[in-house]
């Protein structure tokens, strides 16, 4: 019984080990030199082909594309900057134009105002002269009138008083005596009738 068990165990161990070795017998396929030459041959063939095609045909095209893009972008930036400068110049021109026209307008306005003021001054002077002349004339007239008026008043006073006396008394009195009285009265009351 015991012998059988030992034999069974031994057999199972042997089968296990042989299985493991069977798996291991393949080992690392990398170290099996059977296809080494084939791998080297195909590696050099495919890699060489890849290298030649890439470096002769494809990579120059990609680098061209990149260069083209770079130069185009640079060109675009250049033109953009040019246009920016141009537009800035245009803006400056526009501003100077506007300033000039503003100044011109101001000058026009000032000129017009000056002219108008001068005109008005001239006219005013003329009118003032005329007014002064008239005032002088009027003053002259007034002065003449003033000068003449007391005599006339005296005459009227003597006439009316002579007539009054004639009517009242019915006698003619000498004109010269009446006028002397009137003159005397008017001299007395001079301040009363005239303000000057």
């Amino acid at each position, binding site marked *: 019984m015991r012998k059988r068990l030992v034999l069974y165990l031994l057999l199972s161990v042997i089968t296990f080990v042989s299985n493991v070795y069977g798996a291991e017998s393949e080992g690392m396929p990398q170290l099996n030199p059977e*296809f080494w030459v084939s791998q080297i041959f195909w590696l050099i063939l495919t890699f060489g082909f890849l290298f030649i095609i890439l470096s002769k045909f494809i990579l120059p095209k990609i680098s061209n594309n990149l260069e083209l893009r770079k130069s185009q972008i640079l060109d675009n930036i250049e033109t953009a900057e040019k246009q920016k400068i141009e537009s800035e110049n245009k803006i400056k021109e526009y501003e100077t134009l506007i300033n000039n026209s503003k100044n011109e307008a101001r000058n026009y306005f000032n000129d017009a105002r000056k002219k108008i003021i001068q005109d008005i001054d001239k006219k005013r002077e003329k009118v003032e002269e005329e007014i002064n002349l008239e005032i002088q004339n009027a003053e002259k007239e007034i002065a003449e009138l003033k000068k003449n008026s007391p005599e006339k008043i005296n005459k009227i006073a003597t006439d009316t008083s002579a007539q009054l006396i004639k009517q009242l008394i019915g006698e003619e009195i000498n004109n010269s005596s009446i006028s002397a009285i009137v003159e005397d009265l008017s001299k007395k009351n001079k301040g009363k009738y005239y303000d000057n």
Partner: protein
Amino acid sequence: MATNPMHQFNVYRIGPEIKIDQIDISFTNASLFMVMSSLIILIIFNLGSIKKNIIPNKVQLLAELSYSFISKMISDTAGSKGKPYFGFIFSLFMFVLFCNMLGMLPYAFTVTSHIIVTFVLAALIFIGVTVIGFIKHGLGYLKLFVPSGVPIVLLPLIVVIEVISYLSRPISLSVRLFANMMAGHTMMKVFGGFVISLGLVGGWLPLGFSVALTGLEILVAFLQAYVFAILTCIYLNDALNLHH
């Protein structure tokens, strides 16, 4: 055994056996994926370069962004002298990237998970860089192994270390890419196997891991291609601008 995580790396013949002088160069699944990634790269970049729009369409934008990405990477690491090698670096980056990315498709084969492929690429770069260095500087290129400002006593030791580190460049470059890709894919396969063996009850956890690993692997696929290309640029920089 289909669940063997290493099974996905098997190379097998597709079509007839092709032999030149007893040397087997048959078309295999690895060859198929190399051809596919090359063709996809060519198609995408051809479509991206055909039109000359000022405002690019999507494919054109993709092509132009990749172009300026690699161009910037080269000018940052190798300076303006690195420009003539742009085509090579670009093809290298794209080839590795697309091989990595195509490997992420289910049932796909990852070309870069084979040490022989990455080693040949790295050796190509190593030989090319060494040749360029000797052409540009003549024997003066050997100054690369003699750093300035090192005490004379230490010089023999430093030179030996520098030579070893220079010679191990192709190995480190190839093993980095190969190991990353192989480890990632193996892990994904292992977690995928767990999903099947644990079934409906316990399979959800490894499924989540698998999803997360897929994201990580896509990142790694890009990152390793980038690292491969940028290390190439750095080696190229050493050869072009000799100042150590």
